[in-house]
């Protein structure tokens, strides 16, 4: 929807900037065609960037028109991902300077602060074209939950390996791809790293692990299970996050 609006927006604007109202030669008294001259409709007709300038001027006009409407604090304003300058350049097809576009964004942010309850619909439409096609703030991660069978899972990746690890409360039994852990990993070091999340938190004998892991070599697979198990453990016990951080996990886990 938004894309189709964008296309119509640019075409009308360009025509507005280029064309002047047609001269009526039949009017009375007839004007002298010798004196007739084309008066551009847009004030930005003589600039090299007619569309973007027009858009900016339109925004300023809207701001003048609605500046008396009540506003909310910036933190309360709805979070909007505006187009980046590159995306805007592609949209209007003109070489827009970043500094100029920054001014546009400033006006947009001010307009966005108008209280949502009284936000006029023409303003909403005008602002719509500056929003990104996909709103990243609208995408929310589905929270991991413990399912009806008491399982929680986490996905871990390391090197070329990817592991899906299910955790269920139990006595410390481990199955990796349907095999016991000593058949899955010949090295004891790999077994320890696979179960490190449980060991670092002292939960080794509290949960059963059931993992599916593929890709990569044995070290990568073991460490992919580490991360998956840590994420699944966080579903059961979110308070263990600091302990897991202290357990020297990879940077991915530390940044969360």
């Amino acid at each position, binding site marked *: 929807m938004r894309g189709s609006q964008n296309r119509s927006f640019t075409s009308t604007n360009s025509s507005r900037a280029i064309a002047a109202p047609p001269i009526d030669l039949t009017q009375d008294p007839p004007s002298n065609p010798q004196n007739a001259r084309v008066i551009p409709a847009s004030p930005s007709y003589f600039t090299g960037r007619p569309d973007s300038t027009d858009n900016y001027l339109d925004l300023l006009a809207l701001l003048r028109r609605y500046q008396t409407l009540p506003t909310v604090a910036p933190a309360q304003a709805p979070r909007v991902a505006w187009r980046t300058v590159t995306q805007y350049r592609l949209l209007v097809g003109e070489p827009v300077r970043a500094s100029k576009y920054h001014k546009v964004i400033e006006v947009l942010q001010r307009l966005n602060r108008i209280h949502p309850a009284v936000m006029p619909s023409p303003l909403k439409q005008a602002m719509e074209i500056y929003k990104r096609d996909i709103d990243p703030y609208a995408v929310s991660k589905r929270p991991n939950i413990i399912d009806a069978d008491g399982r929680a899972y986490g996905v871990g990746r390391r090197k070329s390996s990817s592991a899906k690890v299910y955790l269920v409360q139990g*006595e*410390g*039994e481990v199955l990796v791809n349907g095999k*016991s852990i*000593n058949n899955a990993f010949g090295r*004891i070091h790999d077994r320890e790293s696979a*179960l490190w999340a*449980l*060991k670092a938190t002292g939960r080794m*004998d509290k949960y059963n692990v059931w993992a599916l892991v593929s890709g990569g070599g044995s070290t990568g697979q073991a460490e992919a299970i580490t991360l998956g198990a840590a994420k699944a453990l966080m579903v059961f016990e979110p308070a263990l996050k600091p302990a897991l951080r202290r357990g020297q996990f990879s940077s991915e886990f530390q940044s969360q």
Partner: protein
Amino acid sequence: MSLQTCWRCLARGSNQPHPTRWPPQQPWNLYPSLTAAFTTSSSLSALPPKKKSKSPMLETNVKGAKKTFVKKTKKRQKTDSSKRPEVGERRALRKRIVLSNTNALEVEGLKDINAQLMIDESLRGQVLGIPGPVVDQLRAVEAFKVKQGWPLFRRPAMLMRKDTLDMATEIENISLGIRDKTIRRVFVGERGSGKTTMLLQAMTMAFLKGWVVINVPEAQDLILGHTEYGPLPSTNPTLYTQRTYTASLLNAISRANPILQDLQLSQPPPRTELPIPVPPNISLSQLAHLGAQDPEIAWPIFELLYRELTLPDRPPLLLCMDGLAHAMRNTHYISNTYQPIHAHQFTLINWFLSHLSGESPLPNAGLVLAATSESNSPPVPSLTLALAQLEGNAAVQKNPFATYDARVLGVFEQGGVQVRRVGGLCKQEARGLMEYWARSGVVRQRVDEGFVGEKWSLSGGGCVGELERAVVRMRV
């Protein structure tokens, strides 16, 4: 003006192979033969000067170059002066069984297993020492294996796990005559789960109960082509005997089973059967010793001994074989038509498998035990299939495209063979074992619930071999 040089020199000058390679020459250098008046060939086309043979002390004094001394060290020929190992020394070192370590701590209060104690259910999870005489017997039948952890401890001891206690009860019941049927059983399980140790525990308890134990420590030894063989006359299909191996087996039987000294030969064998005269009323131990001394008569003596042991009022028998898969395929021996001989055509293997299959039951009851191996096991699909079916594993189905060995399937066709999967220890047993390790000084950590649980998980659910690897051998 006449030319300074003769025509011959001109000819030579034009014969230069690659005139363009050389820099443009000055007119007075055009005829290099001038510089070497005594030779007729051009110095440019001369061979490069020969390398002087280097004298060790000095190089030739080239004009303008310094006289240099080049010190030449004599190359020493490295001769290996180390002592070569004697013939068989390395093998002896490799096969050496160490059962005691004086550096290990002596475990205080370690109880020894005995015939009365072994069925005590309350001992589950405890480690019991193996009495010295039994250790000697076990050593004689080669029940101890090299890679097992015996050298870590002061003296051999064994863990009373659930399977051990079950078997102890069975041995007790057979000894008491409550159960008169032969129990035939194959131990399967993952690597390091304790299948071979189950055989050892069975032998320990059988010795304690006064049974006669016949053990084939490795079926591989019988098929590898390392011991001599020969056809048994008047057999169809031809059976083959391994007389040296049989002689050593008789030796092991006579040394390991002192009870044979109390058992007497019931009647002298007919001369058709044994080529030598056997004195009447000799003990069975002496009889076995006779066969051990003379490989020529080892197999007839073995047959006679076995027949004597199956007479009424003889003790129960325990027959064991480890590495069963090796006894289920073609051997490395060849027949006189250059065909590989199947393992079932060897008398000893045939004798054991006839007991395992139930074809020849033990009249005085007893146990026939075999163990598979995961680390040294040739692929035998027929055995895998048969064991899986007996175990009730529906996942293993007959592959329509594979060929199965009818002889192998025939061993298990009659039914009655129990396939017992040796699994992991439970946590209580694992804890008892770890406490024993701690008291022996090989574990320094505090043995508590967390430690036991952690190692139990790391070893894949209490797989004993892996537990030992993780706790005792991988000490940081």
